[in-house]
């Protein structure tokens, strides 16, 4: 199975060559090498996936990275259903988005830089998912963070982009701090950071406690919660969610690949990878479920108030990531991974569709503002149809990918043994309606009605994007439909191949239904599906009424409840809360105390004081050198007299 090594390393090689020679030699041909490399990775990943389906497993070290006494860790690869599926998905999406970028990034001065970074990202993400130890996971984790920073700030001349990049990086620092502590704790407990021995021995320490601030805390709880901190940051869950909407400053293909389909799902991947640890601690599971549920609901309430097409989709990403954590929080890890898998396709498609719309609107001062769009259906039919499929899929319309994965999560939550399962199910169903509403709000505002952007386009007509952009859209549209068919539940006569495939790694969710319901298990499942489908369709219908039939209803909320509307429009004021509770005090501490007192007074005082002392001393001594020969003679005579006197006296 050693060919697995080439899956991450092909994009790395392409990235290095493009970065080194791109500026002067490759220039406009910069897309060839990364595209071919990622396509090669994709073929290898498919080969691996097929081998894994036929039962192949592997875990091997390529290279001894660090050997220090008992601490040994290597650059290693683990091939199992989870990593094989992630590798296949990442390479597939990455390839399609590479191709799309050829059209989207055309004529950008940083063309070669873009392809070098996005290839480097692909490498990092593949290292993250394919590692066989926590340290390599951490390496990939930080490397994708770096690429995300580089790509959000890709247009670094724009202040907002540079700020957003910094914000993403710094907010992630908080999460990664916890994650690093978690990895330390794993090493401290087990003496190794390799997955296999850790997960084998974790049951032995299930009841060990550790004293923390005077309380006895279960060791596994602490470990799981610390690891989950990393997930909170990377997957942008409350309270570390604030960076993701701002990350939309980056180029749209980046938003699609990194901030929707792959990198932000790394947190879910981490929880699934470590599910043995999480499952041992009810507290940790509750934390996961609470973070997911809260974010899911919060983001779904913010999305309908935003006018920036990319921000709406970004909040939708937050919300969908919340769904995945909800699934993890009720023990249905396979359902979470399934939603991750389907979400990657339809969300990437939504973003690329939005990118295509922006491409058409690029003469407008703000090409993302939906208030200047409308009626684009007839100008760009291919974008419209693919975008519509993605929206139907995310809204959970039966038969499409989002329907199967979302309903699996809702059913797992409802049937879960965990006491918070019913609450999760309720919020999830509610959010399903909100999701459908805001997704179709985007569709109706962008593609239906009259075109509202004539005056801002200055006579340019919107146009369909080139083939190199629309063909990836069509392929993704196929993905947004058929990926769900891999996990058709038994209630609908399917056999849920996806869950069976993942079972060796992720296990079963634990169900517990009251006996009366258990008899009619399939019936209950079908009923729940019906409920969430009806809620979703209702959301679509409301969006149709508000944004197509009776536009005057749009003013209802802002006029009737201006306070609530403002609260939602300003994103629950999280940015402001953080500004006053964290950023301002930190800046005060940094500028007032550290810089003002410690730096200016102590360090600069010492550094500047010593030369100052020497200079002043010199000034004083200078007065002696008055240039009058008589003075010198006097001083000399006095000196000689003093010396003689001393000799005489002693």
């Amino acid at each position, binding site marked *: 199975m050693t060919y697995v090594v080439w899956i991450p390393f092909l994009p790395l090689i392409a990235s290095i060559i493009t970065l080194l020679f791109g500026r002067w030699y490759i220039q406009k041909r910069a897309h060839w090498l990364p595209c071919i490399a990622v396509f090669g990775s994709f073929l290898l990943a498919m080969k691996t996936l097929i081998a894994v389906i036929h039962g192949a497993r592997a875990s091997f070290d390529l290279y001894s990275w660090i050997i220090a006494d008992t601490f040994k860790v290597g650059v290693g690869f683990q091939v199992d259903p989870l990593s094989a599926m992630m590798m296949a998905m990442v390479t597939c999406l990455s390839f399609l988005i590479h191709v799309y970028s050829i059209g989207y990034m055309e004529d950008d001065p940083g063309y070669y830089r873009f392809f070098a970074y996005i290839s480097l990202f692909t490498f990092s993400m593949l290292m993250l998912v394919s590692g066989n130890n926590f340290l390599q996971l951490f390496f990939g984790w930080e490397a994708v963070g770096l690429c995300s920073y580089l790509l959000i700030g890709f247009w670094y001349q724009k202040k907002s982009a540079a700020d957003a990049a910094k914000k993403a990086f710094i907010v992630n620092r908080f999460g990664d701090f916890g994650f690093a502590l978690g990895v330390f704790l794993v090493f401290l407990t087990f003496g190794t950071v390799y997955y296999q021995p850790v997960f084998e021995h974790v049951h032995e320490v299930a009841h060990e406690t550790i004293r923390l601030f005077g309380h006895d805390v279960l060791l596994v709880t602490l470990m799981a919660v610390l690891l989950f901190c990393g997930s909170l940051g990377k997957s942008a869950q409350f309270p570390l969610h604030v960076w993701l909407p701002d990350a939309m400053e980056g180029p749209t293909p980046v938003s699609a690949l990194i901030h929707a389909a792959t990198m932000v799902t790394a947190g879910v991947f981490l929880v699934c990878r470590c599910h043995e640890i999480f499952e041992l601690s009810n507290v940790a599971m509750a934390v996961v479920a609470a973070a997911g549920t809260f974010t899911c609901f919060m983001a779904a309430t913010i999305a309908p108030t935003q006018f920036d097409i990319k921000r709406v989709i970004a909040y939708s990403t937050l919300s969908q990531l919340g769904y995945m954590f909800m699934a993890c929080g009720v023990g249905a890890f396979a359902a979470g991974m399934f939603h991750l898998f389907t979400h990657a396709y339809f969300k990437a498609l939504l973003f690329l569709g939005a990118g295509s719309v922006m491409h058409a609107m690029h003469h407008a001062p703000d090409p993302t503002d939906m208030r200047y769009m409308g009626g684009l259906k007839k100008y760009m039919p291919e974008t419209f149809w693919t975008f519509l499929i993605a929206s139907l899929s995310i809204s959970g319309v039966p038969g499409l990918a989002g329907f199967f994965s979302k309903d699996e999560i809702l059913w797992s939550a409802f049937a879960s043994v965990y006491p918070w399962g019913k609450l999760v199910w309720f919020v999830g169903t509610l959010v399903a309606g909100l999701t459908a509403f805001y997704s179709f709000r985007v569709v109706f505002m962008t593609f239906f009605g009259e075109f509202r952007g004539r005056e801002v386009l200055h006579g340019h007509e919107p146009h369909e994007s080139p083939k190199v952009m629309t063909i990836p859209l069509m392929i993704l549209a196929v993905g947004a439909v058929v990926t769900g068919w891999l996990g058709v539940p038994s209630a609908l006569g399917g056999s849920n191949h996806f869950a069976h495939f993942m079972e060796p790694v992720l296990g079963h969710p634990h169900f517990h239904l009251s006996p009366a319901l258990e008899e009619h298990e399939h019936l209950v499942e079908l009923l729940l599906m019906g409920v969430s489908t009806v809620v979703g369709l209702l959301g679509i219908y409301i969006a149709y009424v508000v944004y197509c039939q009776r536009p005057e209803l749009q003013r209802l909320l802002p006029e009737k409840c201006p306070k609530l509307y403002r609260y939602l429009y300003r994103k629950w004021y999280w940015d402001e809360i953080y500004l006053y509770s964290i950023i301002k005090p930190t800046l005060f501490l940094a500028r007032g105390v550290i810089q003002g007192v410690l730096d200016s007074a102590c360090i600069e005082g010492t550094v500047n004081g010593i030369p100052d002392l020497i200079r002043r001393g010199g000034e004083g001594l200078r007065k002696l050198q*008055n240039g009058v020969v008589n003075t010198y*003679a006097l001083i000399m005579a006095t000196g000689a007299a003093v010396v003689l006197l001393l000799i005489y006296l002693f």
Partner: protein
Amino acid sequence: MIPISWYLVLSLVLFALGAFGFIARRNVIIMLMCIEIMLNAVNISLVALGRGLEDTAAHLLVFFVIAVAAGEAAIGLALVVLLFKKTREVHMDEFRLLKG
């Protein structure tokens, strides 16, 4: 015979006069003269001690010193003349070129 200590006292008085003059006076000619006085004060003590210790090497040394001092005085006076020609000034406190 006059005791050596008297010579030494004379030498001391002369040296003190020369040193005081060199420090206190501003005229460069007088300062040069004061230097000569100090030099000769030392010569006196050298000769006196040479006599007292019965070592003729001291006398030879003194002759040598007088000869060299003559040359040195000539150079010193020549410099003073040049300085005066250039600046019309003989007061040494007016020259502060080496002021720090």
